[in-house]
């Protein structure tokens, strides 16, 4: 056990092109196949956990001969995925022990993500952990490692603002809307355009409880598909001015070369409505006449440049949180490594305890037939008390030395030798 190392073999967006990442990514079924290969008594690889997402495929392994891991992995790919690593395959990121632990914690915290502080990764690490638990095999080191990675990821999210602030256009639009409206359940949202961007925006609003969408698009079929997906009604482009009187949010994302929301129509419609109106123009060229902004103090009009500024600001803020996130990761990694070291010393502590208990049992045996049952019980109590007091000091010292990293394998062997069975 003392020779076993935690090893990371990882391919991610930093060291591997997307084409190769696609080829080596693993579904849950394949991950289970890899796990089974390890669980059925593998000589070298004792434990395995896999994190496979669109941006990374990483293998966390506990192995006694790390140098042989790449061979084992490529064989597994050939066997389970019918995929052979090409001669010029990208070099993976290989990290050992502390570095590997810190890497996983950084991954779960979103520090290693393509978009800094991205939120989905924690769920993906949880998924890997669940696969590990459901495999049925005992992988104690990696179980604890993933459990702690999830705790660290959550701590970074709650104790820092690393994952806060929108970093995509769709989310930035929603973030602005959230600064104006408390909830979207009772508010109507007018989507002009039914393309990918509109769908993404609708998805973000729907996740916040929005239920009343009005969709306007040149091609009615596309609008209907979107309306069916998120709920809502479809209108034609010339019905937009009337719709303005009943909506609270307008998002335009089309390729139209002209304004779809004009100044004069909006001016007329404003008399029919009250309260804030958020207008987000993600189109290039713009689809909302910028002059509309001055029609009322309750109109909040943003274009794509404004949203880009929001994103840039948020990314800068996230970067500022890296040191704090890093110190949280260090804390949890340190805890994990302490726990791991305490496992190394456990057999030695057991040996020490066993040594003293053997002495006690042998000495007590000498009196078993010579004294009464009551006297024997008293002797037993006395012996137990003495043994506990004698073994207390070496056990505590061993635990303390393990925590302080003062015990290497040779010392542990020496101590085990001293206290080995007579």
């Amino acid at each position, binding site marked *: 056990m003392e020779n076993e190392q935690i090893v990371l073999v990882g391919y991610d967006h930093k060291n591997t092109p997307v084409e190769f990442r696609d080829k080596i990514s693993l579904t849950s079924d394949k991950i289970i196949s890899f796990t089974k290969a390890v669980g059925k008594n593998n000589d070298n690889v004792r434990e395995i956990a896999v994190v496979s997402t669109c941006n990374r495929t990483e293998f966390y392994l506990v192995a006694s001969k790390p140098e042989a891991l790449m061979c084992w992995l490529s064989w597994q790919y050939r066997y389970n995925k019918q995929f052979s690593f090409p001669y010029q395959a990208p070099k993976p990121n290989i990290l050992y022990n502390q570095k590997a632990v810190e890497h996983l914690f950084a991954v779960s915290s979103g520090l290693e993500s393509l978009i800094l502080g991205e939120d989905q990764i924690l769920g993906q690490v949880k998924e890997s952990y669940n696969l590990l638990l459901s495999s049925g095999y005992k992988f104690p080191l990696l179980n604890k490692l993933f459990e702690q990675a999830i705790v660290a990821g959550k701590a970074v999210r*709650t*104790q820092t*603002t690393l994952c806060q602030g929108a970093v995509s256009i769709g989310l930035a639009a929603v973030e*602005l809307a*959230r*600064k*104006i*409206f*408390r909830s979207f359940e009772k508010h109507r949202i007018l989507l002009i355009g039914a393309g990918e961007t509109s769908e993404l925006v609708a998805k973000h609003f729907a996740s916040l409880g929005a239920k009343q969408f009005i969709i306007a698009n040149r091609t009615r079929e596309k609008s209907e598909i979107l309306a069916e997906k998120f709920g809502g009604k479809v209108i034609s482009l010339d019905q937009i001015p009337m719709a303005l009187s009943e909506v609270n949010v307008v998002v335009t994302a089309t390729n139209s070369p002209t304004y779809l929301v004009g100044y004069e129509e909006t001016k007329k419609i404003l008399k029919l409505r*009250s*309260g*804030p109106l958020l207008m987000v123009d993600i189109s290039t060229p713009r689809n909302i006449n910028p002059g509309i*902004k001055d029609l009322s*103090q*309750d109109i*909040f009009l*943003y274009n794509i440049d*404004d949203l880009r*500024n*929001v994103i840039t*600001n948020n990314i800068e803020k996230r970067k500022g949180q890296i040191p704090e996130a890093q110190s949280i990761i260090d804390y949890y990694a340190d805890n994990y490594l302490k726990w791991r070291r305490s496992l190394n010393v456990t057999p030695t502590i057991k040996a020490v305890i066993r040594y003293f208990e053997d002495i006690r049992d042998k000495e007590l045996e000498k009196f078993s037939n010579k004294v009464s049952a009551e006297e024997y019980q008293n002797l037993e109590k006395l012996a137990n008390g003495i043994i506990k007091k004698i073994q207390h000091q070496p056990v505590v010292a061993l635990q303390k030395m393990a925590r302080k990293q003062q015990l290497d394998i040779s010392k542990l062997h020496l101590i085990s030798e001293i206290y080995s069975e007579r």
Partner: protein
Amino acid sequence: MLKLVITLNILLPVIYGISTVLYGRYFIYKKTRNAKFASILLLCGVLLHLVFLISKGWHLQRFPIESSFESLSMLAFDIAIIYYVTERLKREYTTGVFFLTIVTLCQTISTLLFRGEKTTNELLANPLFGVHTSFTLLGLSALAIATLYALMYCVLARQIRNRQFGILYEGLPDLETLDSMRQNATICGIVLLGLGIMLGHFWAYKLFNHFGLADPKVWITDIALCAYATIWWSTKKSGVHGLHTNILSVWLFVMLFVLVAVLEFFLNTFHRFV
């Protein structure tokens, strides 16, 4: 009794002060733990403040608003309790730092200049007067809180329009919440001030056989209450909301404040107790 009064007098600014710091930390760092602790501390502060006011009144044998410094403590209590109610209604903690700063300042000044001297003012010794004053001050505090919410709304709306994503943009809740909290505080203000004014008129009639309308401060408050009630009712009926109603709310309170301040300065009305 005096020992309890003195102890609470020292304790209150400390409790409000810590609560303010915690609300401030929540405003900046958005850590829910801070907000929850601040809110619990505020509730403790409000309850202790109530004990303080009752024991102080008991000790002095009169309603404790004789001097400006005593009134400051009453004002601090009123703002604290009304804020607490509006906070609980929306579970929105981000604005706490602003109100608790005012509460802490008022209570600290009151604590520093506290004198436990007994005076004999017949008017203040009347319990009905205490109820009338409590409701009126609570009502006015609620309207002041509504004004602050309206002010926050205007500032935030301006920042959103001008793309100034600074500390207020980050810290304050959304416009809809601010508007809703303003409305809640306004309703509280109208009801409490209405009750206070009604009791005042009733009491004046009982004591002096007239409704006290000779005092300009009284009819200005009456007019202000009517204005608030009318505006609240008409906006509710027409569904008008947004920046204009918030601006109106600010102006209404500013006018009320200025008029009462001017009258207080130039006229010596029966609402003086020393």
